[in-house]
């Protein structure tokens, strides 16, 4: 439990930190941080909080899809509520999900001539990136549907 809490705080801080690097407005910082935290928790929840070994590809993909979806939906809501561009929220909150470790292993194993290991990690990088993108796509779709219903009912 403590670990989950700690990791959530880490994700929040990382998101806010990246927000400062991109110079997003102050009033967007905390909201972005919360969205980053939510995305991280969803990702962790889907690969299992207590899992020690490497998650399977399908598990990783599903976790990233759901995290991307949640970040997309929350960013959309935040953007509408605060009348601010959506990219202020979804770019920083994506950062904790970036497959930095895997990308590094790709380079390291390529240099060390372990091409098969490098390709395995490259597969993970591509899966993660693609699944997050798909999650965003679904979020966008939901937003469009919601907007359509909004127009119809009003």
């Amino acid at each position: 439990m403590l670990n989950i809490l700690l990791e959530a705080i880490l994700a929040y801080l990382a998101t806010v930190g990246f927000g400062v690097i991109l110079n997003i407005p102050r009033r967007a910082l905390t909201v972005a941080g919360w969205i980053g935290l939510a995305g991280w928790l969803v990702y962790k929840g889907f690969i299992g909080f207590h899992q020690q070994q490497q998650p399977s590809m399908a598990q990783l993909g599903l976790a990233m899809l759901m995290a991307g979806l949640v970040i997309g939906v929350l960013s959309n809501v935040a953007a509408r509520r605060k009348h601010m561009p959506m990219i202020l929220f979804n770019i920083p909150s994506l950062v904790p999900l970036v497959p930095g470790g895997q990308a590094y292993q790709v380079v390291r194993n390529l240099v060390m001539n372990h091409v098969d290991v490098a390709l395995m990690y490259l597969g993970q990088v591509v899966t993660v990136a693609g699944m997050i993108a798909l999650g965003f796509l679904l979020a966008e779709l939901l937003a469009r549907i919601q907007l359509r219903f909004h127009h119809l009912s009003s």
Partner: protein
Amino acid sequence: MEETELVMNTALLAGEILLENGAEIARVEDTMMRISTNEGYANANVFVLLTGITMSLPDGTATQVRPVHSRTLDLEKVDQVNTLSRQFASDEIDVPTFYQQLRQVKVAVPTFPFWLQLIAAVVVSVTLMLAFTGLHQWLVVLLTALAGATGYGVFYLINHELQIRFLSEFLAALVIGAIADAGVAWLALSRLAGDAVIIGALMPLVPGVPLMNAFRDTMAGNYLSGPARAVEAILSVCAIGLGIAIMVSLR
């Protein structure tokens, strides 16, 4: 300035600021269209690419082109233009005021000064190193903080002083790798710790804005600008990878 000219200049300036500071193509086109529509030019033509804007108003024969060469990252400016455009749409400000305010936004300095960005780079590096690897030793944390701050500092200074594309990422990665390796050798840490330091310290360099916009632009049907951004992001990642590859092969 004549009125048509002013409307056109205002729209172009708004578009230019947005494009330079990391807004999506759809947002740039939308903002420019709103500005001209609001002033009675409902069927203006706006054509935006990643590297330039073309705009013409219906009843004049004049067309203006505005190339955009530099792309920096200052999302606050995107938000400011967005806010001004909203105020303009609700008639809180008129065109001349809008234009003046845009010129101020263009030259405004970022709210967060360099030292604060360095601290932010340390925060991003350390937190993500911990989250990704779970290696909570004080020496590793300190080394990650040092490597993250130095790497981001190199990246920032080369970007701002020399403006050479991709050299900043490459040199920053080189410096990060060097600090990690030297620290591991000097403090007698494990190889795993060296990997963790590098992974964490590289995180502030992630090209988040080009990556996200490549996706959003492509999905919005901008098949020239979206892939162009993807190329930008991939080259950034390759520059980082090259720097790290050189350091790893020197071990």
